[in-house]
Structure formats: C-alpha cells, structure tokens
C-alpha cells in the first residue's frame, strides 16, 4: 500500500495558514514560518517582516529578475540566492523541499510611513504554486490539508 503524507494547517482569521520549517544554512537561519496557502501566487515568498524577524538584512539581497504584479501594483522583490530547505511536518513523517533561492516580498521604498506600516501589517508569507503543485490542496472551514501526490 502506498503511504500518503498529509500536512495540516489551520484557518486563522479566514486565511488558510500552514507552519513550515524554513532553513537557510548560508544565513544560519532555522525558523518556523507561517505561510498563507495561495494557489493564485506563482512564486512562494517570505515578507520583509519575516526577514526582519530572522535578522536578514534584505536591503543587501539582490533584486529578483522578474517584476512582480499584484493588486497592490508592481513590486521589485529581492531574492535569497542561497539554498533554502522547507520542512513539512506530519504524523506519518516529515517532507523536505530544497529551493535554490527564495523570494522576499519588499515594500516599495519612498512610500509614506503609514502606507509602509499598513503593507507590513497585511502582507503574508505566501506558499505559491511552485511548491503547491507537488500536493493536492484541500481547504475547508477549519483546516487546510496538503496531501503529497
């Protein structure tokens, strides 16, 4: 019988969130990160807020080569151009995904202080289709499940 791995997250404030271990040995980072499960996002990314908590100086990171488009407008994101490992935990066992690089969503410079604060408040870390394509994703009222295909 083929064993399936099922990773479960919670719906918090009407958002499907899953906790994943985010590791980047080059930056000596090993931290749990809550991601919004977002099938509408192309590339997974952590936010400027999360980078600040991890003590990453995102201003030193190179820009991501592609322009990012969202309802908030156009952004120039940065990229952690080092190996990042994401570890998903389940009762049946853990599952690791190695990423050659990882995006950091950056708030545009030269915006008003109040706008910057609002953007930090409401921009989530996102788990996009680059990662989600490996799973069957099920969202219901109380939880989100990622089932390994």
């Amino acid at each position, binding site marked *: 019988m083929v064993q399936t791995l099922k990773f479960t997250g*919670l*719906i*918090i*404030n009407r*958002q499907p*969130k899953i*906790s994943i*271990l985010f590791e980047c040995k080059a930056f000596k980072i*090993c*931290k*749990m990160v*809550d991601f*919004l499960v*977002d099938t*509408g*996002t192309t590339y997974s990314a952590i936010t400027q*807020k999360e980078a*600040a*908590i*991890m*003590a990453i100086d995102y201003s030193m990171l190179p820009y991501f080569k592609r322009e990012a488009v*969202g*309802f908030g407008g156009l952004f120039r994101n940065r990229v952690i151009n080092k190996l990042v490992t994401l*570890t998903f*935990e389940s009762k049946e066992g*853990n599952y690791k995904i190695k990423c050659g690089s990882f995006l950091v969503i950056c708030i545009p410079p030269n915006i008003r202080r109040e706008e910057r*604060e609002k953007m*930090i*408040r*409401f921009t*989530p870390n*996102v788990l996009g289709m680059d990662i989600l394509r490996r799973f069957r994703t099920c969202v219901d009222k109380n939880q989100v499940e990622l089932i390994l295909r």
Partner: protein
Amino acid sequence: MEKAELFKISRRNTEWLKDNYETLKTKYDRCWVLIRDRKVVASASSFDEIMIDVKNHDPNEILVEYIQSEPVAMFF
C-alpha cells in the same frame, strides 16, 4: 533547538492564536502582538515598536501578529 521541538512550539502558539483570536480582537484591536508560550508578552501599535521587543526573544519561540477587529478585504 531540536526540529521536533520547533514544530511543537510553533503548533502550540498557532493553535493558541486560532483559539483566542476573537478575544485578542477585543483586547488588542489595531495592535501588533508578540505571543510566547501561549500568552501575549508584548504589544505595540507599529511594527517598528514591536520589533524592539522581538529582539529580546528567541525568534523560534514567538509568533508576531497584527490584530484588527474590522475586517479587511485582501486580494493577492
């Protein structure tokens, strides 16, 4: 810290946040909160302010969230 312990701490904080979100909306409306060991240990009105407290804690033992009772329409 062992990875299993990191998952355990994160799960505890996240479940506590989910279970107490409605209470937090009343008590900490429009505030950033720093959650550690299933309780709010600091709050602030701006991200820069809460980051002062964040620096005094192990990032793996905390959860930093912005709480707002008024619903916000989000489109990503």
